[in-house]
């Protein structure tokens, strides 16, 4: 890598000389040059590419050693790396040929980061805390700017800074550019600290939204400085205030518009799925540029664009596009961040800009810290009186300490007009120093501080369905309480928004298929199922072969879409498994996917195991035991030992087979996802040994198992009816001999409809509407064996048995 750097320097210094070659080559008309060195031809892109490469190498180097990155945040190391590079270039060139120019920074490096931020913003958290965030962003920033400017001016008047020519207005201008907390720096530092999510969103949200204020303040004071002190009167000040609203709200609105546009587009891109990701990047960038063009807040614009389109994009686009977008955005954002920090380092090594004024620099640092803390404490005290969940004192300290300044401030400083502001270099230097201080020093000490203060850390959330259900219940409860008490509270508004959104926006912006699958709870459920499936296949592979999957195709999720043709469901299951681009990403759900064997391998590596511990545990405990044993002991002789599991398997097979049969009838609605964890609980509950002896009962249990093994079983009074169909099914010879020779099993149960009288249960209304002819639970059966009750004894709250006839 050093070679690269040296090459860079050589190249840059050699560049002037190359032109001679060019000229030389051009004038040489005597022959054809077989190979010529055409530096100028490629100079710009080449340099850009090499620099990017160098930055990435730097990151590679730094990340190679995790021990160091534990203590020192990556951003600090990158800056140091930039120092080194800058030193080398300086040494080679005696002049700093490369530095972070505002154009490059604001137009190329910043937008990807902001787009990524908006796109992966946790919306719910953000909007819940929006009040606090806004207060901090607006009032806090104004406070910072004002106090810094005024204090510095006061000190200047007091003579602490020696002889520099900065007037009050310029101080205020300087204050306004130093005031803003920088999102890039905040991400970089907080990313390694993992504080609790509320704290993070407060600091981070503030850093994003204060761009609106910063832009306005900077422009206003810039204009004032240009106009001179005399031209300021009330009118100008009012104009300044108005411009704040215009800039901030205009920027956000623009972002929303672009976000909606994007979502609308994504609704129509069914046929060009390969380009879908492109739309996001281009439109996101356009929203940034449009805001810049209209002198609105570009950061706000691009962030809100991302926030707005998240949900719709993720629902509308297909699996691959979503992953591509997410990943590519991270690549760009990370790359940009790396480059920003490296260049921040490089820019320092430039003798031309260095002006040192102890008073100015030290005082700036001091005031920034002090006023940040004061501001945070005051504002939070005010906020806590209205917040449901107060912000703790420790959190406030971290918020204050997390007021990091970064590249945005530097970019603004470099943009200062030298003719109007004579001390521009001083300001640039101070800004750089402040940035280094905050990023390096505060970054390094942030983690120890967090640990020392015992700040509440982010919890690794294990999603459980119960929690989700309960959260929803609570939501409804709160809305109810508000309704009853006649108050309009947060929950009421949120509910109204949700209704509005569902009714109008979703209809407009989501594809019809996506709209049907919106239910949150169901999403969680599906996600968990997918994880199970992946774990399952992973386990299977580990144990040697997935052959059993191919034979027992029933264990795989069914890929069903509304109206899909199921005729080839049976023989094609195996083909499907090979061909499908299964939706392996746990969060996506456009089609209920099968587990594609090839895809899953790649995704296995990417899959984090932390989630779904319960499911995993269950799988390990129950599912695999059964399967493995089954695989090895399918012979009749071993039946007595592993009766339970084997029977589970068999029944399950039969169930699946008949299910697939019923699919063929083509009357299916959306098929339920297959939850493989089903086998599990049956095991303990099947005190089955007796079952074998009594044919009747074992028949019941069989059915019970089949029910248990299918998507959901439950032992309540929910009456359902088994409608087995006769059919080929997967004739798996491995299983047939396993069938217990007891009589009911000889007759394929699904043929013996007449024998069903034992458990006359009716499908619920809902089930009838959705899945006629589908396999239903015979939950009551289990209780039959256990408690001796028959189905008839239990109350049947739902439609009476006669309904069955419809489905036979």
């Amino acid at each position, binding site marked *: 890598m050093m070679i690269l750097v040296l090459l860079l320097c050589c190249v840059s210094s050699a560049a002037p000389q190359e032109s001679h070659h060019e000229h030389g080559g051009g004038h040489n008309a005597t022959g054809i040059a077989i190979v010529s060195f055409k530096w100028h031809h490629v100079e710009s892109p080449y340099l850009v590419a090499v620099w990017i490469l160098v930055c990435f190498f730097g990151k590679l180097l730094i990340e190679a050693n995790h021990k160091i990155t534990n203590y020192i945040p990556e951003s600090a190391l990158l800056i140091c790396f930039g120092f080194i590079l800058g030193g080398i270039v300086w040494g080679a060139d005696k002049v700093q040929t490369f530095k972070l120019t505002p154009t490059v920074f604001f137009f190329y490096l910043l937008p990807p980061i902001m787009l990524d931020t908006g796109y992966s913003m946790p919306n719910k958290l953000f909007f819940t805390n929006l009040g606090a965030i806004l207060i901090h962003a607006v009032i806090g920033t104004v406070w910072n700017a004002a106090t810094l400017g005024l204090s510095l001016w006061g000190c200047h008047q007091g003579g602490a800074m020696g002889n520099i020519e900065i007037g009050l207005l310029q101080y205020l201008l300087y204050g306004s550019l130093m005031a803003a907390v920088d999102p890039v720096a905040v991400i970089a530092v907080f990313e390694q600290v993992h504080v609790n999510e509320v704290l993070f969103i407060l600091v981070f949200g503030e850093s994003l939204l204060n761009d609106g204020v910063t832009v306005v303040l900077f422009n206003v004071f810039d204009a004032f400085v240009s106009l001179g002190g005399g031209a300021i009167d009330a009118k100008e000040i009012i104009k300044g205030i108005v411009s704040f609203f215009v800039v901030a709200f205009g920027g956000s609105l623009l972002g929303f518009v672009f976000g909606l546009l994007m979502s609308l587009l994504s609704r129509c891109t069914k046929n060009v799925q390969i380009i879908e990701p492109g739309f996001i990047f281009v439109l996101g960038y356009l929203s940034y540029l449009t805001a810049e063009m209209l002198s609105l807040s570009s950061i706000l614009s691009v962030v809100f664009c991302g926030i707005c389109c998240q949900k719709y994009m993720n629902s509308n686009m297909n699996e691959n596009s979503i992953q591509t977008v997410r990943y590519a955005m991270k690549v760009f954002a990370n790359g940009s961040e790396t480059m920003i920090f490296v260049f921040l380092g490089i820019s320092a090594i430039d003798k031309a800009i260095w002006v040192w004024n102890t008073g100015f620099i030290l005082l700036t640092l001091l005031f920034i810290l002090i006023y940040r803390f004061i501001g945070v404490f005051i504002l939070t005290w005010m906020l806590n009186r*209205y917040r*449901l*969940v*107060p912000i703790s004192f420790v959190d406030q300290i971290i918020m204050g300490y997390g007021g990091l300044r970064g590249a945005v401030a530097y970019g603004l400083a470099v943009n200062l007009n030298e003719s109007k502001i004579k001390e521009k270099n001083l300001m640039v230097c101070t800004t750089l120093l402040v940035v280094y201080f905050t990023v390096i020093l505060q970054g390094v000490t942030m983690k120890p501080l967090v640990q020392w203060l015992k700040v509440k850390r982010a*919890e690794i*959330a294990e999603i*459980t*369905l*119960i*929690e989700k*259900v*309960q*959260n*929803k*219940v*609570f939501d*409804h*409860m*709160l*809305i*109810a*309480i*508000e*309704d*009853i*008490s*006649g*108050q309009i*509270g*947060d*929950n009421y508004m949120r509910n109204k928004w949700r209704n509005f959104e569902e009714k109008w926006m979703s209809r407009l912006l989501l594809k019809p298929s996506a709209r*049907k*699958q*919106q*239910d949150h*709870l*169901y999403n969680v*459920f599906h996600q968990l*199922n997918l994880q199970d499936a992946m774990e399952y296949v992973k386990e299977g592979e580990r144990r040697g072969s997935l052959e059993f999957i191919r034979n027992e195709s029933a264990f795989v999720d069914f890929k069903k879409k509304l109206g899909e043709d199921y005729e080839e469901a049976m023989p094609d299951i195996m083909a499907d498994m090979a061909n499908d681009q299964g939706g392996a990403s746990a969060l996506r759900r456009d089609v209920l996917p099968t587990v594609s064997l090839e895809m899953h391998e790649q995704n296995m590596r990417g899959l984090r195991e932390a989630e779904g511990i*319960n499911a995993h545990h269950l799988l390990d405990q129950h599912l695999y035991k059964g399967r493995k044993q089954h695989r090895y002991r399918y012979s009749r002789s071993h039946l007595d030992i592993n009766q339970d599991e084997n029977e589970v398997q068999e029944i399950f097979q039969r169930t699946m087979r008949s299910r697939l049969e019923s699919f063929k009838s083509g009357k299916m*609605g*959306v098929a*339920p*996802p297959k*939850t493989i964890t089903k086998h599990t*609980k049956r095991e*303990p*509950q099947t005190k089955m040994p007796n079952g074998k002896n009594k044919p009747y009962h074992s028949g019941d249990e069989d059915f019970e198992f089949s029910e248990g093994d299918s*998507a*959901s*079983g*439950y*032992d*309540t009074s*929910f009456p359902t009816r088994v409608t087995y169909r006769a059919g080929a099914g997967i004739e798996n010879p491995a299983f047939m001999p396993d069938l217990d020779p007891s009589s009911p099993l000889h007759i394929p149960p699904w043929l013996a409809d007449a024998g069903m009288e034992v458990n006359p249960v009716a*499908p*619920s209304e*809902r089930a009838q509407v*959705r*899945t006629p002819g589908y396999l239903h639970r015979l939950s009551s059966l289990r209780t039959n064996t256990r408690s001796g009750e028959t189905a008839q004894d239990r109350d049947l709250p739902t439609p009476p048995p006669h309904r069955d006839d419809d489905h036979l």
Partner: protein
Amino acid sequence: SVSAAHLLRLHQRFQLLDKDSSGSLRSEDLEAALSENPIGVRIVGAFFQLGQEMVDFPSFVRILAHFRPTEKNRTGDGVQPDPGTQMKCPSSVAFQLYDRDRDGKISRTELLQVLREMLGLQVTEEQLQSIAERAIQEANLDRDDTICFDEFRKSLEKVNINHKLSVRFLE
């Protein structure tokens, strides 16, 4: 406790809800107010009908006052049950939302009913059952296929119930 202004407002609201001006609310009145709420009936049952059929104004206020975001939040999640009313701690109230027959366990049917009420129509029966199944699995520690109160509470230990059950209106 509750300020006078709030009391006045609540009283007005009470009178508004009390359609037959009987001085106390019947469950129908409350349910009418919650007609849009998917689990309105349950909520009414769980909160407002602890043994009595009608809710008079003092009880009304007392019950609503339980949702105030007061010291509860600051002292963590140990809410002392108020001996004055029959309201127990928030998690048991939540539990009762599911467990309508009050047998101390949430059976699969009960869970299923709640789910059915809360989930949209586009979720099929099988999916509902799968969800219920899975939910029970996750919480179920004693393998009895129902969720008893302890399991319920344990599965919700990450959820700060007090924070969740605060409504910002009775300041």
